[in-house]
């Protein structure tokens, strides 16, 4: 019987009408620096363009800080630390943080829209993940502010001083919350440098600090490119450096911090293994793998970018993935039905494209969805490679895009060995119906976060951070207080 193989049809027929989020948001044409409680123009009067990656067009102009502005920000943070925030009782600091958390919740909708316009991520993610988590982090650390003595029994935790914090473009507002909330809860003051391509929501967060009555100088925000980040973390009057971003930049920061008094935490890249055994709950594993790699267009440091499949299920699982990526809706980040938004920047799209090219050149097979892409802006179809071997570049380098590398294993020991065969160690996922196997393997995999039968779950009470070149120090949970106190 020569019958055509049954196929599912996802095209034609009933489809969703466009459902764009309306945009009555207070987007400004020009964003200033936030220093000493005031929105001020940069001393040199220069601005740079922030682009909406879904259109490639200018969204706003952002102040381009220089060293003189960074100096002013650090001076203001130092003053606020010594005169106001450091000496303030924890119970009072907590009140400000609770207030900030509540205002974030009140403005969640407009912030989510701004986040999607500025960064390209789908509105359903900024609405359902970034914003609720950002508020939750402020709520969580607000609760610690007056209980630090209980976090470190028998010790008396003191603040560190001025924290210089540099954050990435993948979760702009959420990363700001991760950094600022524990710092403030412990009595430190902050100079924050958002990523060049995603500064808008950080300045809106500054407006919220202002609205919450946060004393001037407790948080200062300077915007600009990498060299301004270097100026912040390299400033001699900064006591604590926290960086989230690429391993390459992280190494430079670590080198610069050597021989100084600065405390340092780094949250860097990853190349997480998502390990699926043949007894896994199959449908849910497919969903977990999809969520693991395509969430936020793969711009996630803990993305499950290496899929390790038990050999016996390889072909079936690959077919399931092929079908599933056809139902991912790629397009306008502001459409409520969009699953995959725009790639954050032209530069990042270039890196992703280059690595996809490397995968093809090295002989891996590319599978990609047939989604239509918009004409303008920066886009990449959800894709995965099969036939990947451990030495391929796409198996070793962080792609930071919607591209998955599929490999196989035969035994649990081989799965562990393959999972650990990387310079990174941020996260991992294990999919099996056998609970005991999850616990055993979790002890053997060198990664800071390991998910069992799920992926990409975040909670402010849970510490997050890396092994090996994924960095050190933890954010979230009681562990997240440690980098911001002297015991």
């Amino acid at each position, binding site marked *: 019987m020569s019958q055509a193989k*049954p196929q599912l049809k*996802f095209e034609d027929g*009933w489809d969703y009408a*466009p459902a764009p989020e309306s945009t009555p948001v207070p987007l400004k044409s020009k964003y200033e620096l936030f220093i000493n409680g005031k929105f001020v123009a940069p001393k040199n009067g220069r601005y740079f363009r922030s682009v909406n990656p879904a259109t490639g067009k200018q969204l706003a102009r952002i102040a381009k800080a220089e060293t003189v502005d960074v100096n002013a920000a650090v001076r203001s943070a130092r003053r606020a630390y010594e005169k106001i925030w450091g000496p303030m009782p924890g119970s009072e600091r907590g009140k400000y943080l609770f207030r900030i958390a509540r205002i974030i919740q009140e403005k969640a909708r407009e912030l989510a829209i701004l986040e999607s316009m500025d960064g390209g991520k789908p509105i359903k993610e900024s609405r359902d993940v970034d914003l609720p988590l950002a508020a939750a982090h402020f709520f969580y650390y607000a609760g610690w502010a007056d209980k630090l003595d209980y976090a470190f029994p028998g010790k008396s935790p003191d603040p560190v001083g001025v924290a210089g914090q540099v954050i990435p473009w993948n979760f702009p507002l959420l990363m700001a919350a991760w950094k600022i909330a524990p710092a403030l809860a412990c009595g430190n003051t902050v100079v924050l440098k958002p990523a060049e391509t995603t500064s808008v929501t950080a300045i809106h967060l500054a407006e919220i600090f202002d609205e919450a009555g946060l004393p001037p100088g407790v948080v200062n925000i300077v915007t600009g490119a990498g060299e301004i980040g270097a100026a912040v973390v390299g400033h001699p009057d900064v006591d604590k450096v926290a960086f989230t971003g690429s391993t390459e930049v992280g190494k430079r920061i670590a080198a610069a911090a050597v021989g100084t008094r600065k405390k340092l935490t780094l949250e860097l890249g990853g190349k997480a293994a998502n390990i699926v055994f043949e*007894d896994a*709950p199959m449908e849910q594993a497919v969903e977990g793998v999809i969520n693991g790699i395509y969430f936020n267009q793969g711009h996630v440091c803990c993305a499950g970018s290496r899929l390790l499949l038990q050999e016996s299920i390889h072909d079936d699982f690959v077919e399931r993935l092929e079908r599933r990526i056809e139902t991912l809706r790629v397009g306008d980040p502001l459409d409520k039905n969009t699953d995959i938004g725009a790639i954050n920047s032209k530069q990042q799209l270039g890196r992703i494209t280059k690595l996809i090219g490397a995968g093809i050149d090295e002989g891996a097979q590319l599978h990609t969805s047939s989604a239509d892409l918009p004409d303008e802006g920066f886009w990449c179809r959800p894709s995965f490679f099969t036939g990947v071997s451990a030495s391929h570049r796409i198996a070793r380098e962080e792609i930071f895009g919607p591209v998955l590398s599929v490999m196989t294993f035969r035994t649990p020991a081989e799965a562990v060995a393959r999972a650990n065969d990387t310079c990174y160690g941020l996260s991992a996922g294990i999919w099996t119906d056998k609970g005991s196997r999850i616990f055993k393997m979790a002890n053997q995999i060198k990664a800071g976060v390991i998910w069992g039968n799920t992926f990409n779950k975040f909670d402010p009470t849970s510490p997050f951070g890396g092994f090996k070149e994924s960095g050190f120090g933890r954010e979230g949970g009681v562990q997240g207080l440690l980098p911001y106190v002297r015991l």
Partner: protein
Amino acid sequence: MPFALKFPVPRVDQVGVEERSVKFTKRSIKNDAKSEGLKMAVSMMDLTTLEGADSKGKVTHLCRKARQPMQAKYHCPPCAAVCVYPNQVPHAVKELEGSGIPVASVATGFPSGQYPLKLRLADVKDAVNSGASEIDMVISRGTFLEGGLAEVFDEIAAVKEACGKAHLKVIFETGELQTYDNVRLVSQLSIEAGADFIKTSTGKVSPAATLPVTLVMVETVRDHYLATGRKIGVKPAGGIRTAKQALQYLVMVKETVGNDWLTPELFRFGASSLLGDVELQLAKFVDGNYQSADYFSNG
């Protein structure tokens, strides 16, 4: 497991399947997509009355409603079927004559199924002889939960034989089976035993249909189709009361098994109160504003 099925039955993770279901409810269905979807939902509706108090008069009302749910200006299609107890089948057949709308009958000692097999088979044959072209049977949940998979399989096969040309819908009463693993297993078992449709619930037990339970069933149907080319239908029944819920089910079907299943041949809603809410929504598209429920007839 002493009973070997032909195709594998993968495990189901409760947290994961419920999380996936929530994602379908986040789809935003507006404008044309909404009106088209709601009309499709009406065309998939098994308009149902399963009360001890059912009378010819009640069945007449229901059949008229199924023929033309709304005034002509709303362009609402007729329902998929009318579902009644066996005693009401002859009357329903008469009322629906010429409409092309089939009569579905519950049978096999609905809703409990706790009767001897020969009586249940007689129940089926009787309903078919009275003119029912679709039979909604209930499985023996007690036997299934005891591990009597072979018995349940044989019962379904026997009922299928008794159905003759009538379509067989197998009701699991998922609220009594409780786990998603059970739902996946009984779905595969019923399909292999000859079910044309698999159906969640009788409507007499709470919880009745839920989105995650129906998702597990649709996934089973999809995997079976991909393995064999045979298309099985799915019918969530009970607990679907709002137009919004109905659209969420359609979204789930579309994104799980594709557009081929968006047809009354392969997807049905078993509902008694859903139609009312759908009518309100459909009327709004034509009239421009929401009307009082008083303007729409009951079934």
